[in-house]
């Protein structure tokens, strides 16, 4: 039975160091929630607290409205894939996967059936009788997944379950997890570093940074309307470019900006945002994604710079520009013109103001493009 999860102002510290600093969050029954965030931000810790493996320093954890802080992991009936796999070294692949069923006293025949099914799904049938020490990294990870999915828990907790798989297997596994979720409708909390996974699997994505939630929302929402510079920069590859705004001006209650590096006679960039939004002090930043940029001739372009690097990925080619007002190189997705661009070229950058994001001095988004 899918469970609803609720986290109320959860804190966690390790020997005085605050790791989770007040996380509140509700996960609806059958929801697929993806947790992303930089390395060390506390994702695994959060997952382990939900599982009951780590003590909650303060705050309440509720399953279906009931406080479970003190429940035993077993009682919470969850399936979990550990980031470190944590396979039982003395058991074969099949035994590892079937262990929880055995504990649940499922009859042997039925158990074998379920284990075989899971192994087939995970393309592990051949390794049925291998010990974990005889498996490759990806094979171990799949066994760990098998162990979690073989029974039907209230909720699944996945800690980077696909990180060691190759692209095609990863797509398959991703679909498999998705299909599983479609079928079982369990509640899922899923940690990943893979944005494609996050975007495709999630009902909602939670972005965590330093133990604090920075944004919760549907995948495309996060991509298209990041609430702050952190989320904007974290979601999307290559990263959104941030351009410093030199000057903001009001024109009929609306905002127009001039970017650092634009010379005097370039026209102001008009944004359909009320000017009051940027009343705060400090520099304002404009953000723009690679796919919304175009390269032009340097003359008459919004900004002019040089190509620092070109990445040819096959399907796409990205140019990375050194620009005066940018904090980092600015990524531009190239189209047909890809083959003509080379490192060192002097080029112009052009983008659609409609697609630009604007962040105030505190990094809070004051404008996001309309859908």
């Amino acid at each position, binding site marked *: 039975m899918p469970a609803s999860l609720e986290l109320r102002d959860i804190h966690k510290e390790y020997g005085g160091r605050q790791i989770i600093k007040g996380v509140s969050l509700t996960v609806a029954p059958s929801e697929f929630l993806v947790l992303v965030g930089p390395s060390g931000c506390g994702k695994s810790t959060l997952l382990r607290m939900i599982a009951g493996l780590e*003590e909650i320093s303060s705050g309440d954890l509720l399953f279906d409205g009931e406080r479970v802080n*003190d429940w035993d*992991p077993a009682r919470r009936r969850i399936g979990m894939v550990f*980031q*470190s*796999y944590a*396979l039982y070294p003395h058991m074969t692949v099949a035994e590892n996967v079937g262990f929880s069923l055995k504990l649940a006293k499922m009859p042997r025949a039925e158990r074998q059936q379920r284990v075989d099914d899971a192994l087939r799904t995970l393309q592990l049938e051949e390794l049925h009788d291998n010990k*974990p020490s005889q498996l490759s*990294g990806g094979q171990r990870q799949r066994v760990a997944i098998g162990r979690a999915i073989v029974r039907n828990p209230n909720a699944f907790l996945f800690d980077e379950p696909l990180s060691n798989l190759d692209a095609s297997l990863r797509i398959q596994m991703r679909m498999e997890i998705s299909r599983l979720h479609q079928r079982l409708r369990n509640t899922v909390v899923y940690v990943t570093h893979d944005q494609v996974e996050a975007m495709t699997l999630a009902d909602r994505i939670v972005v965590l940074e330093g133990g604090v939630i920075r944004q919760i929302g549907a995948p495309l929402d996060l991509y298209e309307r990041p609430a702050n510079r952190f989320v904007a920069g974290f979601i999307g590859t290559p990263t959104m470019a941030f351009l410093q705004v030199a000057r903001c001006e009001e024109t009929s209650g609306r905002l127009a900006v001039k970017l650092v590096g634009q010379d005097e006679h370039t026209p102001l960039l008009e944004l359909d945002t009320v000017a009051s939004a940027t009343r705060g002090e400090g520099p304002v930043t404009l953000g723009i994604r690679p796919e919304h940029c175009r390269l032009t001739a340097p003359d008459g372009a919004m900004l002019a710079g040089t190509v620092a690097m070109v990445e040819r990925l096959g399907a796409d080619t990205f140019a990375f520009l050194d620009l005066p007002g940018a904090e980092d190189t600015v990524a531009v997705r190239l189209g047909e013109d890809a083959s003509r661009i080379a490192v060192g070229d002097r080029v112009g950058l052009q983008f659609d103001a409609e697609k630009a994001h604007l962040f105030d001095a505190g990094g809070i988004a004051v404008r996001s493009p309309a859908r």
Partner: protein
Amino acid sequence: MSVLSTGRHQSVSLRFALYALMLLLALVFVFPFLFMLTASFRTNEQIFAHSGSIGAFVPTGELTTANYAYVLGNGNILHFFLNSVIITTLTVGLGLIVNSLAAFSLARLQWRGREAVASLLVVLLVIPFEAISVPLMLLVAHLPGLGFEAGRLVLTRSWLNTLYVQILPFVANAFSIYLFYQFFRSIPKDFDEAAYIDGATPLQVYRHVIVPSSKPVFATVSILQGLAMWNQYLWPVITVPGESARPLMVGMQQFFGHTTEWGNVMAYATIITVPVLAAFVIFQRWFVRSVIGSGVKG
């Protein structure tokens, strides 16, 4: 924490039961020690007056420190103590190095014959010391050694009456090697491999990787080998007739005559035992859950 983990999920009643069990067991295990300790503060009459009752284990009634005064004041207990300390620490110290190195070589290096040696080791465990003590005595009685005579270092005809006759034969110890061997084999291979990649020689792998990951066994072997040396009796009795190299355990014999002052014996026994327990308490700190495995994924 293992199975009996006392995370917050342990119910209060379970924890209470555990404590109760531990205390009960503690009583069962501690009583001879208490008996010894209590008796060491009593006269012979008092000891027997309390024997067979709970009073044998609880220091009640007339207590006296006379036994300690007597034991410390008569004979060379401090000298014997020093001898025992030297014998034990040297044997343990050398033994840790020599035996762990041998185990490392058996468990972690590839060489021909190492499996044969490992099986031989088990067989050697079986030989009881009693079975070889006399032939060993024949041997050391004829081994040339070094000794001091009139302040000069001289070559002696035998090892009798020395400290090293109580040390050298016991440094290499099949049991210790076997214990190290078992433990070393369970350390993940990855650690060695990483070190070899880092440019380590086998001995550096031993020094920097194996030894630091094996604190619990080192503690175990220290305690066990130290204990065996500290309590050694038969061997020094045979090979060390003089008092200059006599260890503590042998010194206790002077209190057994036609009649025995048990108070003195118990005081002496307490003096022997307490340092070992103290050493145990120090070493056992190495038994905190170590971190093996947390450096690896999977």
